[in-house]
């Protein structure tokens, strides 16, 4: 049951991802991305990462995507118009790069997973609950955690500065 659900979610995420990338209208893209993130959150749950799953819904699907939506509407971005005339030379270059990358990347992932199969799996302990993640965050990773809060403050100031009309 779990694995069937997982594959269903995976197909949904891939489909939503392609929709985001290939769609011409930004509003649709945003909605597609929200859908993809929701499904990803579900996959996190299936992988027993409950805390991260909740964060995924709250932060990504919630806060970040709302921000995207606001910006799209604020700028009143129009759907891309098909470009007339010849396809630019650069496009071919990008396509070549992307193709080579996809090939090499997938081969490497295949190699890596084959190696994983031969090595034994670790104990599947209960890792996903909030307590264990919280403990790691507030003991071993306390300093990075505090620095992350500083980073957020910096981003806050920076954003205000950038978005103001006149300095």
């Amino acid at each position, binding site marked *: 049951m779990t694995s069937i659900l997982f594959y269903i979610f995976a197909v949904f995420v891939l489909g939503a991802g392609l929709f985001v990338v290939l769609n011409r209208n930004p509003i649709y893209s945003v909605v597609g991305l929200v859908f993809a993130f929701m499904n990803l959150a579900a996959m996190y749950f299936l992988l027993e990462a409950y805390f991260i799953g909740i964060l995924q819904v709250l932060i990504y699907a919630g806060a970040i995507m709302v921000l995207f939506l606001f910006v799209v509407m604020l700028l009143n971005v129009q759907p891309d118009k098909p470009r007339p005339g010849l396809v630019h030379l*650069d496009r071919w*270059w*990008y396509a070549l*790069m*992307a193709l*080579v*990358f996809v090939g*090499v*990347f997938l*081969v*490497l992932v295949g*190699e890596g997973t084959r190696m994983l199969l031969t090595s034994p799996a670790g104990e599947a302990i209960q890792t996903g609950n909030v307590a264990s993640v919280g403990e790691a965050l507030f003991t071993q990773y306390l300093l990075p955690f505090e620095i992350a809060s500083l980073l957020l403050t910096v981003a806050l100031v920076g954003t205000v500065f950038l978005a103001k009309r006149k300095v």
Partner: protein
Amino acid sequence: MGEILYLIPLFPLLGFLANGLLGRWLSERQSGMVASMAVLGSFMISAQALLALLALPEEQRLFTQSLFAWIPVGALQIDIGYTFDPLSAVMTMVVSGVGLLIHIYSIGYMHGDPGIRRYFSFLNLFTFMMLTLVLADNLVLLFLGWEGVGLCSYLLIGFWFDDEAKARAGMKAFIVNRIGDAGFIVAMVLLYTQFGTLSITEIAQAAPGAQVGRGFFTAVTMLMFLGATGKSAQIPLYVWLPDAMAGPTPVSALIHAATMVTAGVYLIARNSVLFTLAPATMMLVAIIGILTAFYAATIAVTQNDIKKVLAYSTISQLGYMFTAVGVGAFSAGIFHLMTHAFFKGLLFLGAGSVIHGLKGEQDMGKMGGLKEYLPTTYWTMTVGVLAISGIPGLSGFFSKDEILWSAFSQHEGFRWIWLLGVLTAGLTAFYMSRLLFRTFYGEATWKETHKPHESPSVMTIPLVLLAFLSIFGGYVGIPEVLGGINRFHHFLQPVLASYPIVSESAQHGSHLLELLLMAVSILIVLAGLYYAYRIYVRRPSLAEDLAQRLKPAYKLSFNKYYIDEVYDHLIVQPFTALASFSWKWFDVQVVDGTVNESGRSIGRLSALIRRIQNGFIQHYASIILLGVIFILLYLLLD
């Protein structure tokens, strides 16, 4: 006591920085005061260290201080480390003591010069470098000081660099010194490959038992001696010193008479263990020394420029010192170094006072009759002249006589050195009193328009102090034959190598012989004085007659044996021609061509690469991707 040694060189360094960086905010007088106080500080610490040294028993007289590792490279470890032993003590006292008097004198002499702050900062830098040289406990640090004083010498000779001849004189000194320094560097490399260290004491301990051929020490010491001939103006590298008189006169007194030029003698005394292992070098040192002494004295006899006379006299006296160390009488060499610093410093400062009084006139043909106008200068210079001539009772007598006796007693084969030494002493007495008579006696030949005036007391007080030192400085080394105990010799003896005395007669110590030789040299000196008096005071016309009658010899001496011209034709001109050829062909065609072509090709390449930077974000992203591909491929293939 060892832990405050660093203060000795530190004070002048601070003085240099203060005058060099903050000079513009100092008044002229403050600038001189700062410089003098810095040297005074060094002098006080040195004196304290010397007293502490004397309080110790003879075999423990050594202070050391290692400040920090300067060059730690693999097995080579070079520290900034100072050693204060009797030899360093003597040198430090001379450098800081005479240096202090000359700093004070300079306040008066350089008064009103627009570059006075630069002058004092250089002078302090020189003192710092010289103290580093004499306190260094390893050869590299010593070499730092060695090069540093050379640099200051260059800077101060060319102090009035808007006069091209003076700037050139500075360059000449610098370049001639380079030849000797190359020898020094090679000697250091040889020592390092053999002993694996450059510490002076460690080398001295290892050297006598080292498993090397005699040729090794001969090579090393020959190369060191080459360095010494450059720095101390001996044949064949002496040519820079007469030209160095282009600098301000106190500089000539400090650098080109009292301290820097004696560095070569110090180097040999410091490495006396190495030199005693190489008898061939020792003999060469003695021969070069005495030949230089005699040769320079014959030139000094005919020179008309008051500072040139003193310059050749300095070369001649340095020759004496080299003779002393060459025959193994290291302490006698250092003794003469010290007394020479006193009386030659005095003579230069006196000459400076005369030049100051005559508003820059240096030609003795335009002096004369200054006795009444410059009384203090007159009597102090008289003391200096008598001291350098070797009149009994004055400092020069004791040191010069010790050298002559050492040369005589060392080896039967060296008797001719003694003979030449005595002749030189006679010549010295002659030309020095010639200088005195032509300057202060006879008719005044200066123009009436500017009446000469005595220098201010800031200049005459150092003269008086140096005069006292010139008189009494020799009493630390009264030889045994005259009833003294030669304290100076015994003070230095523990740190110097002793050279086995070969001569039979000397070993059995015939005091009568020593007294006899002393009497001979005194007689010859008195003869020199008498003839100078006869020629230049009693019958001034005689000088012209003699010059006419001995015209070839006179011309040869007056033109310094044409050595400058010979060097010019044999070395300088071929070298300039070669340099000019390399410039016009190799430099312009090959070097410039390569540089220009590489510039052009980079330009072309850039024009190509420039197109990557086209401003499109996705283009950049694709290039990042390219990099990622390479990394992935590397992982895949690994």
